[in-house]
């Protein structure tokens, strides 16, 4: 930082000093508009696939940490995510009571239909998506939704579905099925959906 000492008349700073000061200050501010071009095209990053791979070292090149002083923000716009594949006909959503992870007996028929479909072709993959109502923290709800998805995954396992065919994931409270804050809406949001990818 440039500190102009007490009593110095800033107007009297020579032109050369002024230019040096200007560039030093610009560097200190770290916001040089010219340091990264703003007109480069935004990075297009397709939705990742392959849910079991640890991809920590793959993907885009390792980020350089030497950019602390750069205040530029490069915007990234993502394309829409992939579509679901069809599964067996019939119901696919298991609803849960408040603060509960118990798969109720009412859903035995639903689970048996999904299990039959998966067992008929070991190449078929299901993803169970767990959801919660909108009360409470986002990350804690993500963990609660995971517990619901996991409960459905285990139920399918008990019906003989191979573990590798079913993945349990959670959306927490991020993808509500109903937007109201009344009990009926919240009950519709406490759910696990069986999807095929």
């Amino acid at each position, binding site marked *: 930082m*440039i500190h*102009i000492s*007490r*009593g110095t008349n*800033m107007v009297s700073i020579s032109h050369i000093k002024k230019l040096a*000061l*200007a560039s030093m200050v610009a560097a200190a*501010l770290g*916001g040089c*508009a010219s340091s*990264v071009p703003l007109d480069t095209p935004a*990075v297009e990053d397709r939705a*990742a696939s392959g*849910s*079991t*791979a*640890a*991809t*920590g*070292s793959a*993907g*885009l090149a*390792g*980020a350089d*940490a030497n*950019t*602390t002083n*750069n*205040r*530029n*923000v*490069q*915007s*990234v*716009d*993502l394309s*829409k*995510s*992939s579509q679901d594949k069809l599964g067996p006909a019939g119901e696919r959503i298991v609803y849960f009571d408040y603060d509960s992870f118990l798969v109720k007996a009412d859903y035995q028929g639903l689970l048996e239909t999904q299990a039959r479909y998966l067992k008929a072709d070991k190449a078929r993959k299901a*993803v169970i*998506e767990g959801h919660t109502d909108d*009360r*409470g*923290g*986002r*990350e*804690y709800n*993500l*963990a609660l939704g*995971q*517990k619901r998805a*996991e409960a459905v995954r285990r139920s399918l396992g008990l019906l003989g579905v191979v573990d590798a065919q079913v993945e*349990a*994931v*959670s*959306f*927490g409270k*991020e*993808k509500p099925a109903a937007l109201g804050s009344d009990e009926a809406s919240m009950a519709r949001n406490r759910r696990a959906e069986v999807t095929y*990818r």
Partner: protein
Amino acid sequence: MRTHDTPARRHFLGALSLVAMPSWAQFRVEVSGVGQVQMPIAIAGFKGDDQSPQRIAAIVRDDLERSGQFRSVDASSANGLDESSRPDFSSFRQKAADSLLTGSATRLADGRYDVRFRLWDVVKGQDLGGQGYAIGASELRLAAHRIADFVYEKLTGDKGVFSTRLAYVTKSGQRHTLWVADSDGENAQSALSSQEPIISPSWSPNGSQLAYVSFESRKPVIYVHTIANGQRRLLANFRGSNSAPCWAPDGSTLAVTLSRDGASQIYALDAKGGEPRRLTQSGSIDTEPEYSPDGKLIYFVSDRGGSPQIYRMGYTGGNPERVTFSGTYNISPSISPDGRFLAFISRVNGAFKLHVMELSTGVVNAITDTSADESPSFAPNGRLLVYATQVQGRDALMTTTLDGKIKAKLGQQGGDIREPDWGPFLQ
């Protein structure tokens, strides 16, 4: 929203707030309670400010007021007085100002601006120093924040946080956007835009990267995103859900929540990627890891005792110690940079409220009047917290002092606004 309170107006609003809830739409900084010591400072309009794209004096004044440590005093008699003129101190002594800031913003021939300022001790009639910046128009706000940092540090002895940055997420229709903004919520720039949710942004310790959870592949996975160039790297995409990233203070490791082994558990993952090391072995929910500033402890949320509570353990795992004891729902821990305070969200009679615990005594205070508080995050000097909440039915980002007495609503983003994370000091 950029209205500024003169002392007379501040007094009027202060009196009004005793009988009616203040309207957030009309002013930005709410002062509640009594007894807080605020330094009176007069901030004169900068010479040439009215022809500059940013009103520098107003940005400095808003910054200093939001900090809770300053009260602004009418400075209109010094408006337009630049950094090289000696002010008439007696008139400011009469107004009970301790200090005075004057300055100028001059457009240069090449289109840049020459911004200069000087801080005066009104009581002693002394020059406390000044600086000058020659900068592009897009950097005028940053220059104003740097000036506020200078004043703050000179007069309080603590480093100012006004030139640091915030990350947060908005949702508008189906569009989720991760923003990087100035510490006052203004000047927001989009870092990522997606049709699917984005949650839990976390600044790397050097402020160049954000880790966050994206649902773009129809499940939660963790990315590390370099802000300056938009490069993104998948950090964790294991079977099940991947969430709650938090950087170790040295930037080498992230603590994350993975459900690859069934239950949501906490793992440590090298920042370069690779095989995660499992840190908790509960079979219950363990999530929201947060490193202590010295990196030796990890605070986290677990429902192993039957309800979600905050625990802490060594950074390599081991036997956790419970930290929160009152209430049945305590989540989202954030530790102050000096390690003395824990901010968290506690459910009280169905309302979710920001609390601060002094860790050495265990004394807990609720510091808000709102009921949908989320995601607290400390400023890097530990003097303010940012959090998301709802004010009059609308989502808002707020800052507050740790005692809850001075609050400010940030920015003017439309749509849902959430998940703030306060970035580090930049070198």
